[in-house]
């Protein structure tokens, strides 16, 4: 697609500089090692291949979460969103989860979505926690605005942390907004935020070398199969 860079300069938002998220490794309940690391813009087309089959899964509101995430990642890829980032979880190189968000200002962050592509291992919880860790500990933000679009998300974020309500509207819609403050984050950190750094070289090399992704049927079976948990 031809791009007019003069026009692009007008269309592209000004970015807030962001320090990178340092990768970490988490041991899952089944003993597998999940590498959590920051994706780069060039990773988006591959990530979207894993998000795509989730668009058609109604269970647990995967459809709406995936549709919105797809659009948000595409917007990032096409330079149409301000200061977005994306963290991914990989097991044996395979993509098992995606989270994203962005910076509204240097002090206020916006949480977008959390998508677990494998289930029953608290991958969503781990990745959401990594996202909050990024905002608070690495980007030095004061608060993160959050909404939930699924009952699971509501339970995991609003209740488990617990988050506090705010009257600041979240850009994802008119539903009641919540926020994670630094105090809430550090109070929740001992029970919700884990991971080891640095990631052993072999694991990191495997993760960074290639983002592998399961075929559509496998993804659908993992998320919405009979054994879906």
């Amino acid at each position, binding site marked *: 697609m031809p791009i007019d860079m003069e026009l692009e300069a007008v269309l592209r938002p000004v970015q807030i500089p962001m320090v990178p998220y340092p990768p970490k490794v988490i041991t899952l309940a*089944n003993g597998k090692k999940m590498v959590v690391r920051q994706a780069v813009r060039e990773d988006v087309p591959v990530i979207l291949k894993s998000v795509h089959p989730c668009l058609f899964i109604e269970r647990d509101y995967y459809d709406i979460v995936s549709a919105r995430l797809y659009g948000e990642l595409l917007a990032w890829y096409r330079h149409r969103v301000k200061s977005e980032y994306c963290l991914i979880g990989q097991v044996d190189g395979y993509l098992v989860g995606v989270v994203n968000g962005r910076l509204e200002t240097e002090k206020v962050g916006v949480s977008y979505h959390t998508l677990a592509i494998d289930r029953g291992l608290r991958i969503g919880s781990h990745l959401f926690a990594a996202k909050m860790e990024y905002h608070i500990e690495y980007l030095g933000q004061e608060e993160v605005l959050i909404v939930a679009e699924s*009952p699971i998300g509501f339970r995991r974020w609003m209740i488990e942390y617990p988050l506090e309500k705010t009257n600041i509207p979240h850009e994802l819609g008119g539903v009641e907004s919540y926020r994670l403050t630094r105090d809430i984050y550090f109070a929740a950190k001992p029970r919700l935020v*884990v991971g080891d750094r640095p990631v052993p070289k072999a694991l990191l090399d495997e993760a960074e070398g290639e983002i592998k992704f399961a075929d559509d049927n496998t993804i659908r079976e993992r998320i919405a199969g009979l054994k879906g948990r």
Partner: protein
Amino acid sequence: MMREVAIIGVGMIPFGRRDEDSLMDLLAYASMKALDDAGLGDKSVNAVYVGNMGAGIIQHQTSIASSLVDRLSLLPAAADVVENGPASGGSAVKNGLLAVASGYYDTVLVVGGEKMREITGWRATDFVATMTHPEVEYPYGITLPGMAGMFTRLYMEKYGVTREHLLAVTLKNQEMGALNPYAHVEMTLDREGIFDSSHAVVNNPIAADPLHLYDLCPVSDGAAAVILCPLEMAKKKVKTPVLIAGFGQATDTHTLQERDDPTDLKAVTLASKQALEMAKLTPQDIDVAELHDAFTILEIAESEHVGFFKKGEGGKAAVTGKTRLGGQIPINISGGLKARGHPVGATGVAQVVDIVFQLRHELPENRQVKNAKTGLTVNFGGFGNNVVSFVLKRVEP
């Protein structure tokens, strides 16, 4: 003179989250598998007993036995629902057994089923808590996991059970569940991931102290069924009938607080003793057992109350592999409630089905107890206030 009763057909559907199926679908699928397994085809049965705890609450549907016989075209078979909390399945099998033993019916279908995943986990926990005392327990917020947590703490203090012991049950049952195509949670767990590493705080959080997430069974949809008939008839119908050699049922106080010793599961002791005495066997004669491990502590406690181990030895037995396949007494080789799942009304029947699989020597080598001839089940209702136990025996061809 009561007739001896045998199982000539079994059926089970994979447990899990079955969004696309109604409760009636689950019951019908398991029933049809059992009818097929018994070679009954479209021949009718005399009576149907349905074990179910929550259709009236969860599905807002009652009289499900009447609905099922019509769905299965088994009219005009007699049909009853048996509700006895999480022991509904065991009680349904017992009612079917008595009906055949009495000589009144010759062929009986017993099916247990529950569909619990159409409500949230919180509501499912609340639904199960309806079995607690309505005046002195439920209003104060007690749940079954809460009771199990307190029971575990007491058991730890009195008998020295440790988290290591509970962990051994978790790992064993998940390992076996991963091999069972009917299991809800077909996933092995890893000691480091849920216990040793600092990451376990998220992977395996406290659910009801000292119990953690993976000490609890999942909330499941599922159904299981058996076909019963007199032993003499069974011998002519199938190659390997399984005799219900003994059964027992006992009750205990509704509330835990009224028991002299809340760690003493008297109803388990009494029900299993009755079943073993009727079968003229001792605990040491049993080759394989399915115990009601809704919480890991219950597998340990029941293994002691049945008499497989002395009090205080059940946890150590789990750690040293005595309850594994190939061990002294293999327990919950199906994965138990912990991994197979716990659709409450189905569980008591599913336990019987799993023992039948063992006694018919039908399982793959990695799940089959070699040369199993006898099996025992414990289906635990309430918090041990209504327990049903069976002893099954292989009938050699």
